[in-house]
């Protein structure tokens, strides 16, 4: 029995996490708008909590080409990795959209790594930092790194932790100028981090709604 198949978060906790992520995405969109000088659409219509194998399966089903990812490590009460993922073929389109589409192709190719890293940094930091702030915790976030490969390669960063790990999988819609780029944010966490996140969500829900969640099946 895999722990990721049991409902670790309640519906309200998942709702709270989705709300935090959307607030983060809203702030990231505002920062990106400053960077690119045009309106940026960045929304997270859906999130899912899956196992590492589940995340690879989702990517395999939805994307049948090579992927590119911006990867950052976060450390604190919750420790893990965050990846912004989209199809590799969209990479140049994204850079063109972000830079305004006036640059010749050779310049775009040259700028690709840097523009990807910067865009990823704004989106991932926007999400992670907002979540951390609203949960009243601080997170250390590493510099962005670019990775390319199939889904399983992106998640094959280290041997899976003994207790298993989970992936918080965010489906994102990202559009700038005429480009519409579907992508994903994956946050890879081990079990202790997920349990810490759950406790922080319970506190957050109590703080913002005044409602104390009852642990109906908690061990005394």
């Amino acid at each position: 029995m895999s722990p990721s198949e049991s409902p670790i978060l309640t519906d309200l906790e998942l709702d709270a996490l989705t709300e935090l992520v959307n607030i983060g995405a809203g702030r990231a969109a505002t920062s990106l708008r400053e960077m690119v000088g045009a309106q940026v659409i960045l929304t997270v219509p859906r999130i899912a909590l899956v196992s590492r194998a589940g995340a690879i399966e989702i990517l395999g089903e939805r994307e049948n080409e090579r992927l590119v990812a911006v990867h950052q490590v976060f450390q604190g009460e919750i420790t893990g990795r965050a990846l912004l993922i989209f199809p590799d073929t969209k990479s140049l389109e994204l850079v063109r959209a972000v830079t305004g589409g006036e640059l010749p192709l050779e310049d775009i190719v040259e700028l690709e790594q840097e523009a990807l890293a910067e865009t990823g940094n704004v989106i991932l930091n926007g999400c992670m930092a907002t979540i951390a702030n609203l949960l009243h915790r601080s997170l250390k976030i590493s510099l962005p790194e670019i990775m390319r490969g199939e889904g399983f390669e992106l998640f094959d960063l280290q041997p899976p932790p003994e207790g298993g790990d989970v992936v918080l999988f965010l489906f994102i819609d990202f559009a700038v100028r005429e480009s519409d780029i579907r992508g994903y944010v994956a946050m890879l966490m081990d079990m202790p981090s997920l349990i810490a996140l759950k406790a922080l969500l319970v506190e957050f829900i109590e703080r913002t709604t005044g409602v104390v969640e009852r642990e109906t099946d908690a061990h005394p």
Partner: protein
Amino acid sequence: MTNETTFKLLVVDDSKLARMAVGKLLSANPGWARAEAANADEAVAAAQREPVHAAVLDFNMPGRDGLQLAAELRGMYPSMPLAIVSANHQVEIVNRALELGALFLSKPMTAEALRQFLDTAEARLGTAQA
């Protein structure tokens, strides 16, 4: 002055948590009761079903977004005090809210921001009733 509820605020957000959070803030404002909707369709139905005096609308919702809903409500109730709530304060969104005569409030909403919106709404509603 009376402690009885005089006005109703329609809270529209696809997140239950966000609606609950506004509910908590609203409970500090005794003149106001709350109606809730999880999307634009529910919001329009609620506004047609019961008297609603003001509305706070999440910008980022599946289906029609908060600005589209604001335009619709504006067409139905030209003088209703409206606020758009979002963490996304890009100039295009803030300006569109202002064009629709809606206030723009940052998410997460604070008690002060809601209080100010309700004060303004009460003043406007008081004038309209007088």
